[in-house]
């Protein structure tokens, strides 16, 4: 019940394309859903996050869509650039200690 399932495992898009990464969860106690971007050999960086009472949040070229009834959320990257090539992780928070449960990651490659 604590799992967060993420797909696809890897994704290749051309420059300017819109990659979409999907995550699904079961635990209705999750109350905050962040996305992290990780470059090789670096720590994950917080990219964007959403609360379950919001259906969409946009920050720059990054958009989270959230479907509470389906228990699914997704990350869209508009006008993707080669510099967006990285591994993306979704996560879900629960509890007062704010423990995060992570998806298994999506390796994105943006080609020229």
């Amino acid at each position: 019940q604590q799992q967060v399932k993420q797909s696809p495992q890897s994704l290749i898009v051309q420059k300017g394309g819109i990659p979409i990464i999907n995550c699904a969860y079961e635990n209705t106690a999750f109350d905050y859903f962040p996305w992290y971007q990780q470059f090789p050999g670096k720590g994950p960086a917080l990219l964007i996050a959403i609360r379950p009472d919001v259906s969409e949040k946009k920050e720059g070229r990054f958009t989270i869509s959230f479907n509470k009834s389906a228990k699914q959320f997704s990350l869209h990257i508009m006008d993707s650039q080669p510099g967006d090539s990285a591994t993306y992780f979704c996560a879900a928070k629960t509890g007062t200690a704010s423990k995060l449960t992570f998806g298994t990651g999506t390796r994105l490659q943006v080609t020229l």
Partner: protein
Amino acid sequence: SQTIHQWPATLVQPVGSPLSLECTVEGTSNPNLYWYRQAAGRGLQLLFYSVGIGQISSEVPQNLSASRPQDRQFILSSKKLLLSDSGFYLCAWRGQGAKEQYFGPGTRLTVT
């Protein structure tokens, strides 16, 4: 502004040797602190978290331990390393009352 440090950046240790990884946070008081492990090509697994000095909660039974001797210092230790302890160890912090977790640069541990 807040910054998080981890050291060492890389470490190669023989099986059976002890381990001590350190994490410190600057620019904040009484943060929640977290230790995660990331296996190659995998997601992040929460190992320990701390809500205050001397308060440690373990998420995964294993031969690792954590301590928080000072408000902004978090240490991950082992008395005898196993091959399976190899991985990328990440420390994260969260401000009081905040939802966001911010990660450090990580320590790459290879047990030989």
